């Protein structure tokens, strides 16, 4: 959450006041029994444990915790006030790095959504207390409604605070892409709340301890997934960098093309999975260049036809390398066709217009833009405005106009980190003389007689 604005504080205060106003009047009513307080304590502990070890999801800003199962168990066992109180312990969350505002908001949000779930449950005829065999199956319906109410109120309040604390667009889009997964796991674990309540009838508070085992295993697997994914991305990046060491001026190119392709993909509203795939494709688009002999890359004069053919074949060599990765086929097509032009004069296949796969049309734009805004041995880096101008000029002949406009819009919104200005390289062996990606300096080929 960065700095908290005044509007956000007012919002948070409103949520907390709402939470307090629903809980306070009932606590001043007739006192609850010791059993009620004991159960409340155990469920609060369960909530705290669940809440303190959230699993980071793919997108860094959202974390997932199975604490809804504790709240929903409280709905059945203790009723709306109990559920609100269980949710309120979120304030004490043992997670470090939480700001005061976040803690207070989390407590208020969980209390309000717990209370809403409890009211829904009671309103639809759910009986509060230890479930009995004759409660089933009718109890399912009020419970399912309570789970739905819990999720909706939770996400609604969360959405509100995100609106107030974030202004930049792209992150919001990412956030939305993880919502279906969040919803599904939240509802899945909400179901566990009913199981906890039923187990309570048989084994009392031990039910809460038992439920922690599958919860932690699931969390462990999710954590492993996140870790593997991070490792995967980092490894791929390191290997692509290794490929680039061969060519001094294109260092960082893969990473930037990957980023640019991702920006376009998000701008045109591509699904999160495809966005991820296109970023990998952007990262890997030039690995085939290794198959081009160094002397061809370093040649300053016009290329012979054979040499030009070696360059034209590099997307195919790249495809040869990455074909075995269990990738979306689309990513492979993106790598293979990223040098096709809309007017059909590109390579390797000479596809035109819609024949060119969408991924390739995206990568082509990011690729050319990064090439133009980087320093080359035969010219300085161009300014971004010039490069944009050049993309616009090529729209319709070389580039897909839709992708060009999407890229320009994304550039305005997200900005672009230019490559560091390359100093003169220390060793001449790693310098390429011509850049096949540069639309402003096409490769010169000796016409055969």
């Amino acid at each position, binding site marked *: 959450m960065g700095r908290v604005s005044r509007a956000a504080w007012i919002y948070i205060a409103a949520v907390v006041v709402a939470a307090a106003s629903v809980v306070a009047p009932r606590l001043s009513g007739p006192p609850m029994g010791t059993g009620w307080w004991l159960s409340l304590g155990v469920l609060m502990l369960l909530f705290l444990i669940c809440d303190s070890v959230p699993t980071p999801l793919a997108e860094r800003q959202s974390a997932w915790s199975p604490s809804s199962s504790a709240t929903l168990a409280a709905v059945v066992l203790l009723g709306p006030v109990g559920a609100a109180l269980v949710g309120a312990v979120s304030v004490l969350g043992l997670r470090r790095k939480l700001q005061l505002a976040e803690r207070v908001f989390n407590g208020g949000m969980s209390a309000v959504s717990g209370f809403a779930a409890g009211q829904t449950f009671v309103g639809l005829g759910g009986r509060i207390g230890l479930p009995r065999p004759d409660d089933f199956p009718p109890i399912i319906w009020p419970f399912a409604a309570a789970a739905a109410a819990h999720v909706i109120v939770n996400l609604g309040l969360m959405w509100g605070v995100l609106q107030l604390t974030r202004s930049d667009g792209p992150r919001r889009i990412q956030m939305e892409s993880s919502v279906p997964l969040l919803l599904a796991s939240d509802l899945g674990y909400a179901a566990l709340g009913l199981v906890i309540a039923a*187990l309570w009838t048989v084994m009392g508070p031990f039910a809460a301890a038992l439920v922690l085992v599958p919860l932690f295993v699931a969390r462990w697997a999710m954590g492993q997934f996140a870790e593997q994914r991070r490792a995967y991305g980092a490894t791929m990046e390191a290997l692509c960098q290794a490929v680039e060491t061969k060519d001094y001026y294109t260092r960082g190119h893969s990473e930037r093309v990957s980023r640019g392709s991702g920006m376009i993909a998000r701008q045109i509203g591509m699904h999160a999975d495809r966005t991820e795939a296109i970023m990998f494709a952007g990262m890997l688009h030039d690995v085939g260049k*290794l198959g081009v002999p160094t002397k061809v890359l370093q040649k300053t004069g016009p290329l012979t036809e054979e040499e030009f053919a070696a360059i034209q074949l590099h997307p195919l060599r790249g495809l040869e*390398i990455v074909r075995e990765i269990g990738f979306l086929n689309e990513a492979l097509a993106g790598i293979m066709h990223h040098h096709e032009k809309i007017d059909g004069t590109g390579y390797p296949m000479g596809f035109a217009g819609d024949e060119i796969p969408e991924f390739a049309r995206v990568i082509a734009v990011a690729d050319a833009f990064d090439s133009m805004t980087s320093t080359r041995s035969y010219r300085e880096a161009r300014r971004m405005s010039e490069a944009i101008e050049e993309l616009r000029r090529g729209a319709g002949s070389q580039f897909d106009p839709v992708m060009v406009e999407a890229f320009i819009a994304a550039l305005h919104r997200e900005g672009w980190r230019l490559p560091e200005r390359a100093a003169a390289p220390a060793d001449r062996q790693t310098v390429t003389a011509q850049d096949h990606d540069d639309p402003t300096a096409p490769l010169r080929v000796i016409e055969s007689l």
Partner: protein
Amino acid sequence: MAIRQADDRLPAWQAMDSGRLLLLAAVGMMVVAAIAHTTAARVTQPQTAIAFGSVIAIGELLRLRQQGGREAAPIATAAALAYALLLRVGQLPSHPVPHIAALQVITVTAVGMTVGALPHMAAGRPAGLTGMATRLVAVACVAFAFRPIAGTEIISGAGHWWIAFIVMTVLVVIGWLAEAMIASLIRADDLGARFSVALWDEMRIQLPLGAAVGVSAMMITFAAEVMGLTGLAVFMGPLLVTQVAFRRYAGISATYLQTVRALARVTEVGGYVESGHSRRVSRLAVAVGRELGLAEADLLDLEYAALMHDIGQLALPDPIPGGATVLVSAEDQRRIAELGAEVISKAGVLDRVAELVRCQSWPSRGHDPEPPVGSRIIRAANAFDDLVGGSTDRDRAATALERLRLDTASEYDPGVIEALSEVAGKRLASRLE
């Protein structure tokens, strides 16, 4: 894994070894006996049987592939174990526990599994008989031990649920151990690994999922007393979430390995090494590591390191002729290894792999500090492949081994070379068949 892939190309029956056949025959006989018994006697609580059978079938349909190609069906196993441990369904503790025979549990599980496997077969995927049989053994262990005592006062009496809980826990652990034993016996046989190593790997990898499955089974059992069969349906929710988490984990691990395998080939495409070199070295290194009894986690590091052992060559302006690192000077070898390790350690997550790559250029004996065993294996496997290449010529392999043996005083680890000749011998033998 390499060997299993080779097996997959053979018709199912020829690929089947004696261990598998024995398991399938034993389980098959048990299932036939169970079905005969259950049809002769009457099915107790047919509704419950159908409900559990359906969940088992769904679980079998949603099988999961874990690391190293292990197969699991967590939802099916949890449901089957819960059925084996079942006390009352939607009744107060004053009611007697229904008499469900162990053989009925086996029948329901076997039928459910088979129904769940049918769509796999229809889609042309392997039926997974071995996996199903292994899981069925675990369920049978629990069922045979628990069903006879399920109705006794001490287990199912009111007010002491914890006795039942402890007994159940012990039985589930025994069932899990039986499953791990059988799975690792088969695996050790398949891959030529040591049984003790295979068992340890199996237990380590299956522990998280096994714990979740076992506890889930007990929760279903106890919840069923209050919730009845509704509990089973409700429990599908959290089980599915767990399953999704594991599936994603397994999926990304597989993609990761594929990617490293694929990208390691950039050195080949760039003309730095002979075609297929990285992959051959990695297969050989993993086989040697297995022969030496390395654990699976170490084998994975070894595989990555072997795949990428030449990645440092990318930093060379021009390829070494033929790409044979065994023929270049010690100084160059060291530089390539250092550069490679630098590339890999940039990833920030593969430090052990980077270390293996870095130490591959050290002489295996008399170097201080001593290079790790993985590096010694890569050094030997790389030298062997540089000398032999993709050739299957027996004499050429023998000559190469002889040459490496002569160098065991300093260059190569004698133990590694012995394991290498063992592996090379087995390969030639299997090719001749």
